């Protein structure tokens, strides 16, 4: 009787100890994970900040004033003029060499051919 009770008490005590120990381990692990999460968040925040600074830098490098200067210096590019944008049909094609392209600009034949094309 006594030995059974002692064994039962011992079992309860052991179980309690296990649960306490398990709880402690769990808490420790959660603690570590929280630290890890915090560290990762901190790194992400820092990276996002760095990316933001790079975006600002990129925006600064793409100012129209700077691009214009660079285009003039290195690419001899000028601003597009209104008359440079034309209809596709206005381009002279190879097969037109015998008709429209050959026809004298402003001549009756030229006007007739243009009218036909329309």
């Amino acid at each position, binding site marked *: 009787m006594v030995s059974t009770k002692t064994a039962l008490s011992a079992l309860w005590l052991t179980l309690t100890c296990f649960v306490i120990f398990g709880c402690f381990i*769990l808490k420790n692990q959660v603690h570590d994970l929280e630290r890890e999460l915090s560290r990762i968040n*901190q790194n*992400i925040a820092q990276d996002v900040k760095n990316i933001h600074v790079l975006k600002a830098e990129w925006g600064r490098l793409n100012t*129209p004033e700077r691009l214009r200067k660079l285009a003039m210096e290195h690419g001899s590019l000028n601003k597009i003029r*209104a008359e440079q944008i*034309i209809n596709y049909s206005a381009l*002279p094609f190879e097969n037109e060499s015998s008709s*429209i392209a050959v026809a004298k600009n402003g001549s009756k034949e030229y006007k007739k051919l243009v009218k036909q094309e*329309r």
Partner: protein
Amino acid sequence: MLSVSLSKKNPRSYELKPEEGVRLTEGLFEENYNTSAVQTTKARMPFAVAGFLAIYLLIAVRVFMVCLPGGIKISLPTDDFSEREIDVNAPISRADIVDRNGLMIATSLPTVNLYANPKKIQNPKDAAEKLAKIFPEIGYDNLYAKLTKERCSFSMIKHDLSPAKQAQVNALGIPALEFQESEKRVYLHNNLFAHVLGYTNVDNVGQAGIEKFMGDRLTKSAEPLKLTLDMGVQDTVHEELSKAMEKFQAVGAAAILMDVNTGEVISMVSLPDFNPNVEIPVGQKALFNFPTLGTYEPGSVFKTFNTALGLESGKVKVSDKFDATKPIVVQKRKISDFHGENRWLTVGEILIHSSNIGSVQLVSRVGREDQRKFLENLGFFERIKGLEISDSEKARPQFQSKKNWTDITMATVSYGHGISVTPMHVITAFSALMNGGIYHEPTLIKSDERRLSRRVLSERTSEQMRPLLRDVVLYGSGKKAEVPGYEVAGKTGTAEKAVKGGYAKKRVTNSFLSAFPASNPKYALLVVIDEPKGIKETWNFITSGWNAAPTAGKIIAAVAPQLGLKANFDIETQRAHVKAVQ
């Protein structure tokens, strides 16, 4: 039943024996003793069980709390991991401002401020000397004063340190010097959006423009604020306007480009301007935003509204002719034309030749009451509404009260004198004239929300106005604004500046009000040049057709392709051009 007796020889030892007269056998004594122990144990058992249960319950609750997500607060060491919430999506506290295409135009950059704790400083003289080498602009005396402030544990030394300067200060190893995380507002395009965006103070609080009006939105939401402005177009307008200002030695210039169908401001430039990244020129003209603050007598551009008034009233037809053979006298005041045609003029010719006499004749048919109502409906009698800047940056128009709106007021207002409005008033009302008669409140913020709009004139009047204004560019004072393929329609305006007791002859404010393409207007452009000078190229003329109109033409030629407008060339003209290029 039992008695305890202490031994005389050894007081610490005692003997347990039955009391006298009670006879107990050894077995009986033992049995009685055991029964008593069991009873005691049984009585104690519930307490023990309760104790264990309490412990288990405590453990269960604790385990439950630990397992709950976020149900446990773990204090981390505060040296490297602070417990503050980290919002990884918002690296800055003030949102970016982007243009209509999402390109960044204003942002905040993380910086640090340097401050000192004078209570902790050991050798202020030495520290001030060392800091003066890093910050020569502050000076030794200033630094020493800051480091020796009495009864103070915080003394700001410098805002917004560069990383290099921060490293230099760190290298000094002075424990009393500390850094404070901060942000600096940066305007990526310097002057380009100065008047639209405004600026912030050292505490990142908006002081003018969008920064002031949208301050709450910028600090409460990390989402970038999208404007209606187009960076490329703004740059082109700014460049052309700066060139014009320099060429005509003007004291100022302004331009507004507006989408006539939505009221969205695509570009707004005011010159002279300032760089919000450096010190703000408080109290100087550069801070003045002419498009919204500068009230001026618009001059002949107002004839556009006068003509629309006539057509809308039904009392005037496009084919009607008006007597402009001689100057007209209203309330003893003689009104004449700048370049008098001295003949009868049609409605279209009144605009082409910018006839003051014709305009007065036209408005006389309508009457001053209807004129007032019409102008009021077009928003000329109140501060501009809708535009997202504070009221202090929007001027109130100046005009005669209803009581004082006499015949002479009616006459002068018909050609743009006797009333002062801002360029924003003019272009907003003009957009309504061009888009079919709907007045859209101007806006600087790109939004999908429906905006307030109202019909102010009939579609028919709007359709009639377009060719009339197109003729001004083809045959009238606006010839120099013509851009082949883009059908520019517009009206020039040269207004002498009002001075004490009259008007200054050689000081004018020139405007060119235009829309393109005339057959289906999409954009309206207003160019204002303040006090241009006559130059050799303009034969010393200072009228709008010589400076504001060609400037507008250059702007339209450059921005129309950027805005995705296809030039409406005749195919023959196009082919001729292709041939010429080949």
